[in-house]
């Protein structure tokens, strides 16, 4: 890993593509945040067969947002493994952990892609990473995952699902970026910037909603224009099967 790769405070939010496949970027071999490295040291000795992967801002950013969760993916075989993990994880961190039974680890495409292309393994038998085809099927499956058709046209920051809808809405722009320019990202900040390239008003609206969510301010946002744009641009970017 060259110093040039580490010169940026954050890893590139764009998923690298080689020979038509998304690949795991070598830059994610290094955990950029101290809290992530501390966690890695703590889990290094966990040797019960389960595989634990770090992803998200504690992996990719030198200074993750101070309220950021710790995002982990855990591939397990038995529930005893989960109990052992619970015993060693530091308790002063908020976790967002996806527990994935080994037999079902390929069922959720979104998670599968994160596992193979965007997460750093902390412990367990080394996973053989599978490059994922960077094709329209990838885009379509993510489009279904984010499902803009199911996002209400008015988002209310007070709704318990507002954050979920917000992230889904924003990430649709990452899919469109992939369809148009071959650049895929899930990073919220980057996706908002992409939205702003489509229409500055979109970015303005999304930033306003993000701020309301972060500060727990009450706000409603009419996003039907964004949803309409997403639907139209997607239609113009893909063809019928």
């Amino acid at each position, binding site marked *: 890993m060259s110093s040039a790769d580490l010169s940026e405070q954050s890893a590139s939010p764009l998923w690298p593509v080689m020979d038509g496949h998304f690949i795991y970027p070598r830059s994610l071999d290094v955990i950029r945040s101290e809290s992530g490295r501390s966690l890695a040291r703590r889990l290094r000795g966990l040797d019960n067969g389960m595989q634990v992967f770090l992803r998200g801002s504690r992996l990719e950013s030198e200074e993750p947002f101070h309220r950021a969760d710790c995002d982990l993916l855990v591939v397990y075989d038995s529930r005893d493994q989960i109990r052992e993990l619970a015993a060693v*994880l530091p*308790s002063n961190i908020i976790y967002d952990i996806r527990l994935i039974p080994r037999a079902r680890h390929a069922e959720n495409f979104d998670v599968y892609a994160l596992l193979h292309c965007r997460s750093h393994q902390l412990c367990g038998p080394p996973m053989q990473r599978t490059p994922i085809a960077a094709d329209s099927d990838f885009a379509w499956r993510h489009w279904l995952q984010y499902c803009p058709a199911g996002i209400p046209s008015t988002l209310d920051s007070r709704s318990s699902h507002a954050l979920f809808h917000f992230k889904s809405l924003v990430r649709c722009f990452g899919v469109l970026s992939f369809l148009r320019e071959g650049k895929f990202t899930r990073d919220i900040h980057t996706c908002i910037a992409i939205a702003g390239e489509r229409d500055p008003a979109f970015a303005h609206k999304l930033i306003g909603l993000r701020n309301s969510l972060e500060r727990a301010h009450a706000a409603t946002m009419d996003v039907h224009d964004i949803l309409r744009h997403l639907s139209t641009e997607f239609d113009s970017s893909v063809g019928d099967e």
Partner: protein
Amino acid sequence: MNTTPPNVAEVCAIVAAKQYDLNFTTDVPDELKSDPEVIACILENCSLDFTKLPEQAQNDPAILRMVVKEAPFEYENFPEWARDDRDLTLAAVTETADAFKYASERLRGDRDVVSAALSARPSYDTIAFVSDSSLLDDVAIILQAVQGHNQAYAHIPEQWRADPAVLDAVIAMDIDASSFQLFPDAYRDNDEIALKAVTDDGSSYEYVSARLRADRTFALRAMTANGDALRYLPEEMKDDKEVVLAGLKAGDGLQVSGISDRLKSDVDVALTAVKSDNRALQYLTPERRNDERVINACLDGTGAAYEYFGDRFKSDIAIATTMAGKWGFSLEHAPDIIRNTRNIVRRAVETDANNYKFIGDGLKEDMDFLRELHAVNERILYHVDDDIKNRLFVTRIKTEEHRGTVLELALTLEDSFVDGNQRLALGSVVTRAGTPLVELSRFPVLVYEDDGPIGSYLTARSTNGLMIVGDFLFFVRRNTGAETWSNHLAGEKFAPGWGPEAQTTTDFLNHEVYLVPETIAHLDYASIPSLPRIYFGSEDNIPRGVQAIATEDHYREALTALEQKKNHGKSHYVRVDDHTLRVKSSPADEIFGAARVFVDGHGWRFLIPHDGGAMKSLERLRQTDDNDDKAWIRQQTGEVTAYQRELLRRHFGDDVLG
């Protein structure tokens, strides 16, 4: 589980992470509740409830100094000795004068403390809490008070109210009516002082001297300076057109409510008022509310004025069209002709979905038009009654005919996305030759959980629905198997108050398959558990059959198929029209009407049709074995597809049919 109590650094990390979500009682260990570093961290990242600190901390001078600097409003909760501490009190009142009233009596008579309180953004009544009368005899203190707040004059000792220096100081600021009211008569009779008072606060007009109240010249000057004073004019001047017009031009058109009835009928007055605020129309006479000039002047203002238009103008299509697009417009006050005019109704609904409630009866029966309204403002669904909702916004997902039967699922996709963590379907029906066999009323196609570390993720727990396999019908609850940390088996909820309950067994990850006997024509969701459950487990032992929506992915696909003009990928659906999807056929694990199912205690078997019905079939299955199934299959005649041959090979391990 890690039992080492967190240290200061770890607690501070928790504080920084949780910020205003911090629970001081549970998140901060008792032994660290008095720690200055922890308290400092709390003050920096969120808010401190001083009353929750241990007594030791509440009496720690260093902590009190820290708190008074960062959270001076907590001074009122300080112990008595602290509120008699000069340094602490000075620090508090310097930050907020409200603290002064909580200081000890001794310090409320301390000149330096009093002066500090009056200097730093004092409250209007700070002076009233000074405890030493000698200070209240000090003109310097009094001047500080009145210069600190323009309402303090009313709270200074009465003997100072006629002091010229004090009055000069009050006049130099914005004069508040509560102060002017108490001015000496000579000041309230002084043209220039009274004019300034009215200019600064229109309600001061009420307190000018009798002479000035009767002075028309003064009235004109006052109205020109501040139209808010209009309501305080003496009655005779409320009938003086020049004076009234001066006030309306300088102030708020709604002030017209207080003028004479004669002037409310005056065209010039009416025009001036409504140009300022068209809602002033409500106070004008009927003659003016039917005056075209006045109505035209209202058209640039809010839609709320429409309510007060004369009837012939309310019925004017062009006028109603203009107003319908403005905030505040309500169809509630419109005549029938307007409430039944499509483009006006459309504009009104687009501006405010509440207008749907008042659209004309004729339009309420026009389903195409209601769809148009929904397209311009989805929020009309909050007001649409269930009957129309069911007729209008139903999406039907139909399977292709399978062994003579069709399964149809009806959903209202446009209404509340998720209701109580359930995505409800209006119902599902299985028909044969168009005749309903079984109807399942209102049930959740998807059941969700608020998941993730703060309960903000929407994770599907199960997909539910009817399934046809062979000649049998099943109700399937397919578990997604999704699990995040909040469902771990550690025995505690990850974050109190958020997310689903922690589980003590893995049952929450199980699938369920129920057999629906043909004897049941109407089924409701609550009675599903009373059906025979043939499978309950986490392995994917769900039969393969015909369903409308099998998984959450299918549901999202269905939504997307309806929304997107184009589709992509191996779609399970064909978009027939805006509200209909057809499920593409796919092989079912069946042969000759027998359904391949997993039955608890019996494994994978074939449920074989029986003249006595589905329950007899199940009874037979439990009394026989795989060889009996094989024998039955061999006895049947009829066409067998390649898929079915392969199915038999997979199930029995050999070529059953030879």
